[in-house]
């Protein structure tokens, strides 16, 4: 296994592991803010997977100047650029709704929130 292959697949394994850990946290944690944190982790992992899908080793960043001949795919990066900013706005909404729900039920525990039960 060459260094290039290890570089490429270690990035993919990190991103997939982050998504898996985030989904596990969303499913099993009990505090509403902890669930929001796990959601943010899964969001970061999905962004990593999207950028990885356009990544080719041994190429340069997609900013053309005289020293660059081959670049990576710019299209997934452009998608992720907006996805990050929208992700933080959605996290803000998540936190506000979570705070309101915890005020209504008197606790941050999702087991006591009838609306959020599963």
């Amino acid at each position, binding site marked *: 296994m060459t260094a290039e292959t290890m570089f490429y697949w270690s990035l993919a394994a990190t991103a997939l592991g982050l998504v898996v850990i985030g989904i*596990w946290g969303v*499913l099993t944690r009990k505090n509403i803010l902890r669930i929001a944190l796990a959601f943010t982790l899964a969001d970061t992992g999905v962004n990593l997977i999207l950028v990885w899908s356009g990544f080719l080793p041994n190429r340069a960043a997609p900013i053309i100047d005289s020293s660059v001949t081959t670049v990576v795919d*710019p299209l997934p990066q452009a998608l992720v650029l907006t996805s990050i900013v929208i992700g933080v706005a959605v996290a803000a909404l998540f936190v506000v709704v979570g705070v309101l729900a915890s005020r209504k039920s008197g606790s941050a525990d999702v087991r006591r929130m009838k609306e959020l039960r599963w």
Partner: protein
Amino acid sequence: MIRTIVGLVIVLALSAIVISSVSDYSVPSELIGAGLNYTEQGVDDTGSVNLVTAVVVAYRGLDTLGEVVVLFSASTAVVLILTLIPIGANPTPPSSIVAFTAGILPGAIVLFGIYVITHGHLSPGGGFPGGAVVASAFLLVMLGSNTIPGKTKFLTSIESLAGLTFGLLGFWGMLTLGQFLNNLVLPAGSPGRILSAGIIPLISLAIGAKVASELSGVFASYRKAGGEE
């Protein structure tokens, strides 16, 4: 307990599906499809050296308009909820070190944010990260002051003005060249200069102002919600 086991089973099944779907995949060496097209003709088409900004603003400008609308609705929902339902608290005053720093640094941070926004077609940056940097400067002002910013109406007007500018620049291309958000209603210029790449710097400014005012509005409503009751 049952919740943990069900969660683990779901997660393991998901990762097994993903791993089996990429098992016969090897390290790519060539670009295909739209990416190849963009990297070969991007600089000639748009005049922007940074291909990511070219894709965000020029090739996929309509998608960016839609994403800005999504951001707008999310931040509006936050501000609306916090305006309707006040949540009380009383912040303690900051120490003198924090107050002193918050008096000096925001100007420099705003200047750096404007650099990031306006050089979006030459170096890494653009409207989205630059707007976040400017919003961080607003955050520093709020961290260093004990008072509530009373007048945040100018944030709303900046936000509306930026959205209107984005739409009008799109309609300018429709009127003159017959295509919504056409980049070349202004000359492309020589790539690598600050005054080049058509209307990409103007749209970057509009996106940056919109992102900065929306995130700042979220923070201002947080502080307002903390101050009442």
